[in-house]
């Protein structure tokens, strides 16, 4: 047996396979939509010796944008479904501000991670409350992009899905106006991605719980006493008010409380 005072780690299956698929399809779709959207907004003024009838690259860019938009929307719809049937870390309740405990955790996370005025780490197996709320926000942004995008697409398509969104343009007064908002929200996704990637690296680096790889394999690793306290609380985004104290070194290991 080990004599090392190193805390024992527990392996927890946090992100189920559908959640991981959602994440990477979503990430890929956002990249494709961002790049093709950027090209649609700012196409290069290439000069060609050929005739217009010989080229179609801009048509292909727009086609890719539209097809990817369907993938993006369907993927999000699936994730909403999974937030009902999936495990507690994927549950929809986490994304909505429902309990005071979530707000306490927001404050704790801001102090520990952002302002760094406190060094008492917040241990959560899923995301922390700030992250959950941020992802809830990106869902709203995604919905806006889907609604405005289909609204802009509707006049050129007879498909029943885009035809559900013919009310969007009148709401914004003109297509030109709607186009501007659809375009501007893309920037919000770009900025979200910057912060998101940075913070994942940050958490992986500082906490060593395997956050970065958890979105590939699904597993997180946490000191046993933290994980137990965490799991005892039900929803993953709830603050551990009275953490289980770390085991004293050189004592007989306590039996695991449950399987």
């Amino acid at each position: 047996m080990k004599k090392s005072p190193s805390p024992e780690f527990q392996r927890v299956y946090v992100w189920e396979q559908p959640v991981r698929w959602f994440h990477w399809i979503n990430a890929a779709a956002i990249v494709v939509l961002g790049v093709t959207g950027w090209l649609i907004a700012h196409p290069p003024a290439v000069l060609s010796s050929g005739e217009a009838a010989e080229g179609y690259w801009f048509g292909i860019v727009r086609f890719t944008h539209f097809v990817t938009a369907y993938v993006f929307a369907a993927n999000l719809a699936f994730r909403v479904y999974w937030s009902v049937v999936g495990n507690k870390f994927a549950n929809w309740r986490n994304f909505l501000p429902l309990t005071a405990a979530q707000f306490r955790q927001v404050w704790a996370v801001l102090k520990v991670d952002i302002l760094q005025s406190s060094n008492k780490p917040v241990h959560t197996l899923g995301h922390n409350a700030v992250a959950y709320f941020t992802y809830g926000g990106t869902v709203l942004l995604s919905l806006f992009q889907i609604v405005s995008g289909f609204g802009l697409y509707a006049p050129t398509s007879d498909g029943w899905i885009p035809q559900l969104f013919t009310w969007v343009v009148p709401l914004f007064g003109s297509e030109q106006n709607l186009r501007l908002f659809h375009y501007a929200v893309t920037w919000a996704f770009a900025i979200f991605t910057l912060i998101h990637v940075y913070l994942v690296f940050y958490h992986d680096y500082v906490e060593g719980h395997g956050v970065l790889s958890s979105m590939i394999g699904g597993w997180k690793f946490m000191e046993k006493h933290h994980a137990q306290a965490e799991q005892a609380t039900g929803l993953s985004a709830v603050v551990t008010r009275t953490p289980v104290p770390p085991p004293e070194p050189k004592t007989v290991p306590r039996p695991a409380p449950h399987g």
Partner: protein
Amino acid sequence: MTMLAPRTEVAPTIYEQALSRGVSRRDFLTFCAWMGAYLGLEHGAAAQIARALESKRRIPVVWLHFQECTCCSESFLRSSHPIVADILLDKVSLDYTETLQAAAGHQAEEILRDTITKHRGEYLMLVEGSVPLAADGCYCVVGGRSALDTVREVAAGAKAIIAWGNCACSGCVQAANPNPTRATPINAIIKDKPIVNVQGCPPIAEVMAGVLVHLLTFDRIPQLDALGRPKAFYARRVHDTCVRRANYDAGLFVGTFDDENAKKGYCLYKVGCRGPTTYNSCASMRWNNGTSFPIQSGHPCIGCSEANFWDNGPFYQRLPNFPGFGIESTADQIGLGIAGATVAGALAHAVLTNVRKRGEIGPHPGEDAEKAEAAEKGGAA
């Protein structure tokens, strides 16, 4: 060809009046065929239109002018069949129209009062221009009455309302930010009457004539889109039938107005063309007898048949400036600014993390790889 017996007690039909003005039957039928085509009606409809214009009596019409430049009237007079259009205009608008009526002063106002009392519930109200609401409407007063008063009174007895041009449909230039007179379109004032928004600054002459012919022929307002515009003329984007569309799909764009691409007639998308977001018939019907339209002539569409097109500027930039910021702030500049601040913040935060959380980063006591290995070997031994 037999002339219909003149009916002295009532006004002659549109056809009779056209003949008396020297229009041949051939010209008259050509006009009807054009109108049928413009309205997107089936081939037999030209006969239906001809019959209607031959037999229908005048519709009493009041044509009101408020905050506008009369370009709608001017456009109408430049229709491809000016004499017939003129008769159509005369026929429907002689009762009261500030620009063309012979009467003046109290006499003119009396005619207006006469029309709206005698033909209550029957007359058409045509409006050119927006209505100012600021300062009790004193920015537009005709015959001692504010435009708002007149609109309310005339609309109350109208059968239907046609709003000519961008002013009456969405306020146009006088409603552009900061809209000092609170210029307001008709559909924001009158809620209980059918309103046909004939958009454009000005609308195409044939579109105006087409809407009137539709009303005369079928005795009901044409099918309208979500923004109240007749679908026959505003269902498609200028972009959809544009002569330069192939260049758009092929990704061949004009970069600046004086480059080689412009000379080759490439798509004007990058220099601010509003064709892809503008609903109008310019590209299919064109202007001035089908001669040309802006994009064909090398100028991007400015979107004059869309609401707030003055505020969606600059005209030569694809995306408008972002509202609420300085005039030079586009969405990109704002986005880049925030992204830059984000990267700077993340870098500073990374440095801070390494300082403040030194204790947590790296191997903790007991997590040293060599020691752990040694411990395991020791344990195994």
